[in-house]
């Protein structure tokens, strides 16, 4: 994590005091609901079905052991002992009391955390690759630029009240593990032919009601201009984005209405006025931020697994886990290990206070007290020496954290859905659980291979259903919950799935997924060909027929 200095600390402390005052005035009737609502949202506080929901920022998914322990404390003290990790690398608590929230924020500030701008029509938490800083294919460490963006966006006075929420993602590796093409702004680090660092800038991607893939508006933005260029994009959006209809208010609608070329030209014109001004980055600042991410004293280790570890991971019950949940590290002799929050029978992304403490302790014992949250709703232990793999496996296994399903069908991404969220049309978690139940046989899952299944309880698409190889969207039909299925979506390269037919009842969903999988297994040319590749090759028809039968496969599809 980035370590605060006294100024960073003072800013979050002053935020706690400000929010305490606002909450008190609301409870005393001195602030109206209309006034308080936007203010509390900018602190991540929703009023939900059962109780308020508090969303806490985990900047670009980076946590320390100490911070994770504090989250466990908060779960136990103010919630019912559980937290829910989200697809935007944040954590949500579903049961806090409104009057307790200022105290929660104060507990967070004690460990250099906050809930600033985790909701509301402002710049949200910047997200990145969950292997940032340790990935073997990294061009730059994106955490430094994420932190620069975090500071630039925190209480940005001009962009606190945008037409709609605004999400930025940064990718620093060759493979895009940050889904940058489905963000309002996506930044992709690259080096030019002189070896200088810059960013490819993409705008207008997003999921939600009108899913779109971002378009490139600048091929190479030199590093030092990063923040002034963001200012220019945000200013165009703030002034001209639609405010009359919240479903048409995201930047993607503006980019589409103006065309990408005209939008880019407007940004460049605005930028020409502020370029080279005080917001231009200075080398000292980039160095300062780098230095505030603690150095990791890696040992010099052999790249090969030691014999006894090789033997350990080859055991039948460990092999699948090792193949799916262990990721190559840039440092020889180390691995990044995914802690699966997708155990059968549990809501995807949910974690108990006890589990949090186990992971916090492990991160300190074997690594450097560094933990990551992935947008796939798992945690990562980023620095595990090969020799510690058996110890980590055993500790995680005892706590149900070794489900060997990373990249497989049962590694479902899901929003909290109608059980908790007041926006949802339908429940997500029972559907996720029913599918996990249907596909609980690990050998079968293995045979199916790589498959992303994403579920959202409504159009807001928090579960990223459009970019799942299989996507499931909860819809409301005359007060009843139905589920629309899309196939062929993908996160990298970013591609949106297509609807296969009329939406289904909840009890029919697992069977439909089974039918899709059967078509895939019968038609794939080799085990190398993934589900999504077969959809690409054959199109939707065979899948439609399998789910709806010959006759119904071609009926009109109602997208709403």
């Amino acid at each position, binding site marked *: 994590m980035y370590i605060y*200095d*006294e*100024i960073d600390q*003072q*800013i979050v402390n*002053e*935020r706690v*005091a*400000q929010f305490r005052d*606002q909450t008190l005035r609301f409870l005393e009737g001195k*602030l*109206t609901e209309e*006034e308080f609502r*936007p*203010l509390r949202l900018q602190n991540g506080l929703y009023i939900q079905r059962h109780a308020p929901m508090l969303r806490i920022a985990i900047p670009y998914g980076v946590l320390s052991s100490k911070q994770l322990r504090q989250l466990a404390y908060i779960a136990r003290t103010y919630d019912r002992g559980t937290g829910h990790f989200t697809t935007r690398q944040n954590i949500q608590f579903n049961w806090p009391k409104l009057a307790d929230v200022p105290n929660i924020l104060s507990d967070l500030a004690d460990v250099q955390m906050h809930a600033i701008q985790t909701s509301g*029509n402002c710049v949200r938490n910047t997200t990145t690759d969950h292997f940032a800083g340790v990935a073997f294919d990294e061009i730059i460490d994106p955490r430094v630029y994420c932190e620069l963006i975090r*500071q*630039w*966006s*925190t*209480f*940005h*006075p*001009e*962009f*606190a*009240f*945008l037409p709609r929420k605004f999400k930025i993602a940064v990718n620093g590796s060759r493979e895009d593990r940050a889904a940058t093409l489905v963000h309002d702004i996506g930044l992709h680090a690259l080096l030019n032919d002189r070896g200088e660092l810059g960013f490819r800038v993409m705008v207008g991607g997003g999921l939600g009601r009108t899913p779109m893939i971002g378009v490139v508006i600048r091929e190479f933005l030199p590093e030092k201009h990063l*923040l002034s260029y963001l200012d220019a994009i945000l*200013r165009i959006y*703030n*002034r001209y984005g639609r*405010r009359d209809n919240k479903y048409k208010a995201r930047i993607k609608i503006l980019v589409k209405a103006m065309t990408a070329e005209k939008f880019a030209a407007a940004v460049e014109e605005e930028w020409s*006025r*502020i370029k080279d*001004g*005080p*917001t231009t*980055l*200075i080398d*000292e*600042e980039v160095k*300062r931020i780098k230095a505030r991410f603690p150095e990791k004293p890696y040992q010099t280790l052999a790249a090969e697994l030691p014999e006894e570890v090789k033997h350990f991971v080859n055991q039948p019950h460990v092999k699948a886990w090792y193949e799916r949940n262990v990721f190559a590290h840039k440092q020889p002799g180390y691995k990044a290990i995914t802690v699966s929050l997708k155990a059968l029978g549990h809501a995807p992304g949910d974690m108990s206070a006890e589990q949090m403490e186990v992971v916090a302790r492990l991160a300190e014992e074997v690594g450097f007290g560094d933990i990551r949250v992935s947008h796939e709703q798992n945690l990562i232990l980023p620095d595990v020496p090969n020799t510690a793999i058996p110890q980590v496996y055993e500790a995680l296994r005892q706590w149900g954290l070794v489900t060997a399903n990373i990249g497989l069908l049962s590694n479902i991404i899901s929003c909290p859905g109608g059980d908790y969220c007041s926006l949802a049309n339908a429940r997500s978690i029972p559907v996720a659980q029913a599918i996990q139940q249907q596909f609980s046989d690990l050998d079968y899952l293995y045979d199916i291979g790589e498959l992303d299944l994403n579920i959202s309880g409504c159009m807001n698409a928090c579960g990223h259903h459009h970019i799942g190889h299989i996507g499931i969207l909860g819809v409301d039909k005359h007060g009843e919950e139905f589920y629309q299925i899309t196939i062929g979506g993908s996160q990298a390269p970013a591609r949106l799935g297509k609807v296969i037919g009329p939406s289904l009842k909840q009890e029919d969903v697992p069977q439909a997924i089974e039918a899709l999988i059967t078509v895939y297994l019968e038609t794939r040319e080799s085990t190398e060909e993934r589900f999504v590749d077969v959809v690409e090759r054959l199109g939707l028809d065979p899948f439609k027929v399998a789910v709806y039968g010959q006759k119904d496969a071609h009926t009109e599809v109602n997208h709403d």
Partner: protein
Amino acid sequence: MTKQILNEVIVENPFQEVADLNTLSSYSHVIIPIELYLEHSSAFEQFQGELGIRIGTDQDLALLVPILSKISLIEVRYDSFTDGRGHSLARLLREAYHYKGILRASGDVFKDTLYYLKRCGFNAFLVKESETLDHALQGLNVFTESYQAAVDQIPLFRRRVELLRI
């Protein structure tokens, strides 16, 4: 006379609404909507007193910029404090068009909105009916430091070393 916050203190608001243009010469300070100015520009060009123009958050700056040198107050009226367009307008007036006169926010303005408005270049405020000027004033400086550049400050990263030395 009503009161306003101007440069962080509570003072009289001398700008008055004009009901009848024939009586214009009897005022020392007037405030009018920009539409009225554009319709009767010759009458206002002869006006000897201080002129204030009221605009909305969606004002087209091309109509306002040519008359900036003639006016001493621009009031941006917020129908809702969540309409951030006014914040961009304010920064553009200060930073791109170098407007030096009074820039005032009115409408849905209260304690919790003042800090951002001030940073965007507003130096005067009329608060909403349910708010008092004394209470609102406390909202002007809720944060001691700010990270990014705005009208009031260069970015923290250009000041940080100096600040931490003190």
